[in-house]
């Protein structure tokens, strides 16, 4: 009898519950809304439609118009209301649809939401989540394809989260909602698993347990273990890096892929430790190359050369000083692809330093 029970438990623990990224994210929101009635969700088309990118499918049916709130196309007002509601003890989630639209409401994010806790000397908390889709790859051109995580990460007072896989999507959403600080949670359109947009799936972790679980911020995930070269990505570029690592391993190059998962706070130890092991670093980012994540991580290694002995110069892949173009071949060229990562890794393996 006992052995049967044990067997069932083992089976349960091993049971893989595959979910798409968007479903995992919604499940996280839904479980938190059930747990805490101060949580509510507002944004454009998040109600009956369930979100332009299906980010809230089923939530309106479950929680109604009082807690899943369709807003007018008035992002400044929405972000400002999130601040006011959070200051009065609610836990709002405000969805921006496209991260590109932060341009119309960035004052509320940068000058108000990010600064309230600091300016008030800790007297006023801002337990709110700003969510937005990001990323290109499906010819939506310059105003609907950007990854702007570094802009948020640049401003003190915002935590920045960008999961790469369904498992993390749920656990990080739950942590974001429970956090007493403003959290910017970005989901890349090209990993959501939507039926209307192509997506990359390197099978990093599609297992989404049904029970609620929170993944702490500031803890990187080692996606692929390796010894020759460290590849750090974020969000969709983690998926691309994992595919690149698989290709590289066939060619005899052992790549370690690291997903920081959160930019603020950043798990610097995991990155330094990995580069100390491999001696080579490639940072691959879909945000702009200049003054962003790739530069930040390069500086991190430069500041830790007492712990790290580099075997080749650092390679940075990003959107290099251009807006995202519309035409397919142009967009493919502007955004780092799997082949670019493979080429950069091979170059790192053959180059030497002075």
């Amino acid at each position, binding site marked *: 009898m006992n052995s049967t029970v044990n067997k069932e438990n083992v089976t349960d623990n091993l049971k893989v519950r595959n979910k798409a990224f968007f479903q995992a994210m919604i499940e996280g929101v839904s479980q938190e809304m059930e747990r805490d009635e101060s949580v509510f969700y507002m944004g454009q088309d998040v109600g009956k439609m369930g979100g332009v990118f299906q980010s809230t499918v089923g939530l309106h049916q479950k929680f109604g118009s009082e807690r899943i709130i369709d807003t007018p196309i008035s992002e400044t*007002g929405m972000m*400002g209301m999130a601040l*006011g509601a959070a*200051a009065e003890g609610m836990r709002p989630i405000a969805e921006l649809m496209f991260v590109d639209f932060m341009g119309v409401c960035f004052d509320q994010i940068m000058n*108000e939401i990010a600064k309230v806790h600091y*300016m008030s*000397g800790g007297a006023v908390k801002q337990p709110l989540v700003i969510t937005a889709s990001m990323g290109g790859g499906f010819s939506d051109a310059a105003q609907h394809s950007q990854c702007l995580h570094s802009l948020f990460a640049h401003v003190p007072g915002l935590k920045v989260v960008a999961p790469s896989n369904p498992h993390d999507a749920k656990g990080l959403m739950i942590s974001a909602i429970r956090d007493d600080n403003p959290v910017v949670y970005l989901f890349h359109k090209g990993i959501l698993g939507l039926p209307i947009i192509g997506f990359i799936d390197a099978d990093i972790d599609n297992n989404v347990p049904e029970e609620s679980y929170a993944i702490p911020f500031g803890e990187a995930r080692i996606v692929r273990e390796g010894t020759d070269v460290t590849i750090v990505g974020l969000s969709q570029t983690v998926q691309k890096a994992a595919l690149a690592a698989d290709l590289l391993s066939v060619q005899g190059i052992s790549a370690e892929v690291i997903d920081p998962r959160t930019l603020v706070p950043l798990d610097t130890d995991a990155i330094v430790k990995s580069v100390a092991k491999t001696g080579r670093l490639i940072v691959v980012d879909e945000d702009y190359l200049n003054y962003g994540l790739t530069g930040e991580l390069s500086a991190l290694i430069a500041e830790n050369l007492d712990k790290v002995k580099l075997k080749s110069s650092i390679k940075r892949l990003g959107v290099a000083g251009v807006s995202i173009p519309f035409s397919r071949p142009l967009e493919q060229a502007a955004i780092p692809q799997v082949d670019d990562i493979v080429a950069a890794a091979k170059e790192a393996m053959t180059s030497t330093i002075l």
Partner: protein
Amino acid sequence: MKEVTDKKRWMYETMVLIREYEDFLAMAYFEDKLPPKIQKGLAFDIGAGPIPGEMHLSAGQEPAAVGVCAHLTKEDSVWGSHRSHHFAIAKGIDLDRMTAEIYGKVTGLCRGKGGHMHLFDPAVHYACTGIVGGGIPHACGAALAAKMRGENSVAIAEFGDGAANEGSFHESLNYASLWKLPVIFVCQDNNYGISVAKADSTSVKSNVVRAAGYDMPGISVDENDPFAMYEAMGEAIARARRGEGPTLIEMKVFRYYGHFQGDPETYRPKGEIEVLKEQDPIPKAATRLIEEGILTAEQVKEITSKAQERVMQAFSFAKESAYPEASEAFQHVFAD
């Protein structure tokens, strides 16, 4: 009747306290800022002295603050702007800690991190922001929170006429009307957005007409009079508490000082201040309350000296307080 009498007396006392505070601060601000301590060629140094930074004073706008706040409970919230000392005081903010904040002291409301444009006192639900129009949607958010929780509290967005040209104003009015939020928009027309006169910046003569565009009542208070504001606000707040939604009130007020202290005010017509001083709402209110038998001339004097005493106490508290340790600059970015 007694309640009305008490309210009127409170409004007068509070106006006097605000005026005494602002007039004293107007002078204290220049301590160690004027020659000979400063560099040659500078008229004064904004960053010098015990009260560093810009200073925006609200003297002449007291009637708006007391007329509104006389209706509020502690749970009702006020969301102000860069020129909001009058509302802070009328809402019952801790005056000692407010003053310490203005001096950048560790005993300040924000431990010296906010300064006079960023005062937060959650105990009385008061906050203000230095971005013009920035606080208007915050009031809507507080009102939304109250509505979602089934509470009876209201939120006040108070701002100047310049803010009514910001997108945040228009978005907030649409939201508030659409969702019937318990919020009151209090626009104080002091005729200037920094240096530019309202007629040169605003397409409408009165912002009240903009209320119609958002299907909400608009009330114009044409006289800088606390009792007129109190009456207008009474209707607006009752409507909000009944769940019928927002109201926009615009009140004519005076800006007795420049946009900031030290503003040479070259844009202001000669003699304007003198004309506005002749219409000073505080002596006018005193005359009226004496006529109504609510105050005696003796009591009016007492109120002033009491206010002066309170102001001195607050400034002494601030001056005697310690500065924060330098290490505090790196604290409070995030809540634990």
